[in-house]
């Protein structure tokens, strides 16, 4: 007998990256620029705090929304860094990664038949999250000529005016694009005009290399219609500890917590201790990692240009998004360069509309590996010429 799977699950295909895994397994000299997580380990002070908490036997559940102390620390941090004012009692929930927070928001806000506009190319979890929640997706492609920023024209062309929710992520995975305050203002006006709830994934906020990150929730009239996601995976190099959070109006956070209390109870306790220490004492470690990413970013952009691949000036996260040479699809190029040169990159179409013809290149890898990878890609291009 076979067990019948739900239609919701059946409509969502497995992640497009899977096949590449198998090819990468065949070689032992692969340099991977396909990784969406930091190459740094969690700052030692945070790891040490986690270890201490284990030694002290602090392994029980915490409050559903996370330890009060941690929510207070998060409130202080987002106020200080991004000018975001949230009440630790009612407006902040700590989750098992930003991933859980995004899922909770979809389940709390999306009814069957609701439409969720998603700026693309984007992180791959939003679309399945909407479908699992029973909603429908309205992709909003962004374009290289706009430096992959979301525009009102793009929203209108995609029919997002009729959507219920709008999701985007800046600094962006996979393009490395950022949006400044002046870029966000028209989007905020559009959301207010068409009464859209905005889900803003700001997990890469710290990794902004040109100026300071602005959250759309700080724009007039936006706080009450925005849910902000952030977490410790990227800037604090804590991916495996699984800790993120959402900030939003009390009723939305309360609704998210209602799901969370039945499905997760509380975010990992050990990770909460690590996070508390990360906010308390790891600012310098974070700075140092950001400085390193920035140097690598400039290195990689320069090298792509030197070898004749067009790449727009990525200013955030740890990705850049070069164009594949003409005559190739992104998928063919990525597969061939992996088979022949052992360099792993992700084809842009995996990330949705607007990603085709591009590669996501992660520079969360040592400079030595980046240098070698670019040399191999250069050799590959010369062979093809």
């Amino acid at each position, binding site marked *: 007998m076979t067990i019948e799977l739900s239609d919701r699950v059946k409509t969502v295909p497995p*992640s497009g990256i899977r096949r590449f*895994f198998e090819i990468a397994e065949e070689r032992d000299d692969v340099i991977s620029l396909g990784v969406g997580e930091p*190459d740094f380990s969690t700052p030692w002070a945070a790891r040490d705090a986690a270890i201490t908490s284990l030694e002290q036997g602090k392994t029980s559940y915490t409050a559903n929304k996370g330890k009060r102390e941690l929510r207070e620390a998060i409130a202080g941090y987002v106020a200080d860094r991004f000018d975001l004012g949230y009440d630790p009692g009612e407006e902040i929930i700590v989750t098992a990664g930003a991933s859980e927070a995004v899922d909770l928001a979809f389940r709390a806000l999306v009814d069957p038949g609701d439409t969720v506009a998603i700026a693309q190319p984007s992180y791959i979890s939003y679309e399945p999250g909407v479908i699992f929640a029973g909603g429908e997706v309205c992709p909003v492609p962004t374009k290289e000529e706009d430096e992959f920023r979301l525009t009102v024209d793009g929203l209108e062309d995609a029919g997002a005016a009729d959507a219920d929710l709008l999701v985007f992520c800046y600094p962006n995975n996979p393009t490395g694009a950022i949006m400044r305050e002046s870029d966000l203002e028209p989007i905020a006006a559009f959301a207010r005009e068409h009464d859209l709830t905005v889900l803003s994934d700001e997990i890469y906020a710290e990794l902004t290399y040109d100026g300071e990150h602005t959250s759309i929730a700080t724009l007039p009239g936006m706080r009450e219609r925005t849910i902000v996601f952030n977490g410790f995976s990227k800037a604090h190099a804590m991916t495996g500890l699984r800790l993120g959070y959402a900030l939003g109006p009390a009723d939305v956070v309360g609704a998210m917590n209602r799901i969370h209390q039945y499905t997760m109870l509380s975010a990992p306790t050990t990770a909460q201790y690590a996070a508390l220490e990360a906010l308390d004492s790891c600012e310098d470690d974070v700075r140092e990692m950001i400085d390193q990413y920035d140097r690598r970013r400039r290195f990689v952009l320069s090298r792509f240009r030197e070898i004749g691949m067009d790449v727009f000036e990525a200013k955030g996260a740890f990705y850049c998004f070069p164009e594949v040479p003409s005559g190739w699809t992104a998928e063919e190029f990525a597969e061939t360069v992996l088979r022949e040169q052992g360099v792993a990159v992700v084809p842009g179409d995996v990330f949705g509309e607007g990603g085709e013809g591009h590669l996501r290149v992660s520079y969360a890898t040592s400079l030595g590996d980046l240098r070698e990878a670019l040399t191999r890609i250069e050799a590959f291009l010369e062979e093809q010429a």
Partner: protein
Amino acid sequence: MSEREVLESLRENARYSAADIARMTDLEEDEVEAIIEELEAAGVVRGYQAVVDWDKLEDERVRAEVELNVRLDRETGYSDIADRLARFPQVTALRLVSGDYDFDMEVEGDSIREVSQFISEKVAPVPEITQTVTHYVMTSYKENGIELGDGDEDDRLSFSP
């Protein structure tokens, strides 16, 4: 500012080529070369050395940390004593420090005997030096900011979203 960036890159890895530093800092290669020359000429950058894990080599390398106490008089200051000690090639580092003793001196040699002899014959007899305490290095765990252990392994998946 760009001077600082070049310096930071060199401190991270002094073997980065000028071309690579240029790519990382958005400077031109010849600008980087000029900055490095200036840093060297001004004596900001005094040299470039490999960070060696001696435990990985067959041949013995003996290193010692030596605490020195000195007595100053009207004619002799700290820098006079330091000048005199620093000239010995066996002395690899010499710093005036706060606390219980005056100088913190690092010494290297091929054997304990050689290092001991150096301290007893060349250092201790210096008239201003009133006391030496020698600590032989047994194991080194971190040198110049570089951990000598196995480090954290990169066990990330080759693809992740």
